[in-house]
């Protein structure tokens, strides 16, 4: 007969770390209001906590200029609302979110003009920061003892990918893959996010772009609420292809054919004489592989 404590810990206990995109540049121009989105998310988080007594939920905000922890269901710092009308999940999260949004906006002020006027694209959210924080938290969960919930990360993202975060996001993805932590992505922006597709593909998570945003809670509860143990026998959305294109180091554009430095592996879109990352001068006498193959074909 297994002892009572181990019986409580079944296979489907999960630790869900949610990174919530709060980028004001995205939400102000998006057709779906942030308040409605947040109501779907809060209902979903509540349902996760209801699925099992031992489930844990952590929410991290991905802002435009900073990231922070919004809510931790296992921390003892949560204080419910003074009137008792809302559970601590809602009151704490909303309170922390308000504080965070005000601070995030303040951080933008000195650079506000530069951020809005620089380039045509709106600034992206700091996904690399919130992913790094999520992974640090998950490592803490691993350290907590031999019995711990199965962790996973869910990225709720709408902003487009920021090419300047490419290396940091890839580092986070590889670290997640190494610790076997799946990264699920629910992307609600206009075009598919290549970074999140790669993240979910490499770590074994699910990437899904919901077609109808009014039913967002339904997509959350049927696709993203599934714990890792149950995914083995559930039919979940299949991938619609992964965009593995790289972004070049010189212009940050996505390219599907480029030149790679043989020393440091940086990617360029056009031929250079010198690598800007490692400084190696490319040999003039040695022909590269492409031209030697061309010669073979012409012969």
């Amino acid at each position: 007969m297994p002892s009572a404590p181990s019986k409580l810990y079944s296979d489907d206990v999960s630790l869900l770390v949610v990174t919530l995109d709060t980028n004001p540049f995205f939400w102000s121009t998006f057709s779906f209001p942030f308040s409605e989105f947040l109501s779907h998310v809060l209902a979903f988080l509540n349902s996760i906590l209801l699925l099992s007594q031992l489930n844990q939920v952590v929410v991290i905000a991905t802002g435009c200029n900073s990231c922070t922890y919004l809510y931790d269901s296992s921390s003892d710092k949560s204080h419910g609302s003074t009137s008792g009308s809302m559970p601590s999940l809602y009151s704490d999260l909303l309170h922390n979110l308000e504080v965070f949004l005000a601070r995030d906006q303040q951080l933008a002020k000195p650079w506000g003009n530069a951020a809005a006027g620089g380039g045509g694209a709106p600034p992206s959210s700091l996904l690399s920061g919130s992913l790094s924080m999520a992974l640090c938290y998950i490592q803490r969960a691993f350290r907590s003892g031999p019995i711990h919930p199965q962790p996973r990360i869910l990225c709720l993202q709408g902003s487009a990918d920021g090419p300047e975060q490419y290396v940091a996001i890839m580092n986070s993805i590889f670290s997640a893959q190494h610790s076997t932590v799946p990264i699920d992505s629910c992307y609600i922006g206009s075009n598919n996010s290549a970074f999140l597709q790669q993240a979910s593909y490499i770590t074994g998570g699910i990437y899904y772009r919901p077609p109808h945003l009014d039913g967002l809670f339904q997509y959350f509860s049927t696709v993203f609420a599934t714990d890792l143990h149950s995914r083995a026998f559930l039919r979940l959305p299949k991938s619609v292809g992964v965009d593995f294109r790289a972004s070049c180091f010189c212009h940050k554009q996505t390219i599907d054919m480029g030149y790679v430095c043989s020393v440091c592996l940086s990617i360029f879109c056009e031929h250079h004489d010198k690598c800007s990352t490692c400084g190696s001068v490319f040999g003039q006498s040695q022909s590269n592989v492409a031209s030697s193959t061309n010669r073979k074909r012409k012969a």
Partner: protein
Amino acid sequence: MGKLECSGDASLQNALELVLGYLNQIPSYGHREVLILYSALSTCDPGDLMETIQKCKKSKIRCSVIGLAAEMFICKHLSQETGGTYAVALDESHLKELVLEHAPPPPAIAEYATANLIKMGFPQRAAESAVAICTCHEEARIGGGYTCPRCKVRVCELPTECRICGLTLISSPHLARSYHHLFPIVPFDEVSQTPQNVSSHGFSSDCFGCQQSLLSQGNKPGLSVTCPKCKQHFCLDCDIYIHESLHNCPGCESFRHSNSTATRMV
């Protein structure tokens, strides 16, 4: 594995000639290395072994040997001539240690491998329902394959060379795995344990990465480290994790306008 058995005499020259044949096809920017696990105490060769060693040296192949029996002069000579290492294992754990020493790549010699710009393609992975004829198996395949950006044929796995147009196909995660070496994070500074730190505004009571309390018993500051760029505090476990596995400082990544993001190239 059941069919492999030992018979005949060991021949270093035959092994090296075989290696020469394979490694000569590697383009000039590649590094050529061979690791020989040798347990015989002699070598029975069809020709002049010294000539083969000179050929290896000319082709810039770095030969290393791990001996399993006793030290042999010819192995020592081979490794010295080609710039490799020679060691003899004393027992099983020593053997494992010697083999794993070869896992990280050796320091590259700049004259041996000239830097080159290699043209590569980054294919997209097709959807699960896509049907195409794949070039490696020459039959119709359903599901995930990759499309060559130049000639648009399907290949099954990466990295590979496109059979039709010869373009090297690779996925960006393959290259991105080594980018953390290009942009390493600085080691964190230890925070001194003086009582002034408790009341100073810079000290936070929680680790920035994992929110674990940095205070030990009695509300005194425990051991913590701080990032010199973003000045955030981390616990020691996060420090180890960040520097060994994650290669990203959460503090630097979470603040857009800190100094670290301004100086990053990518």
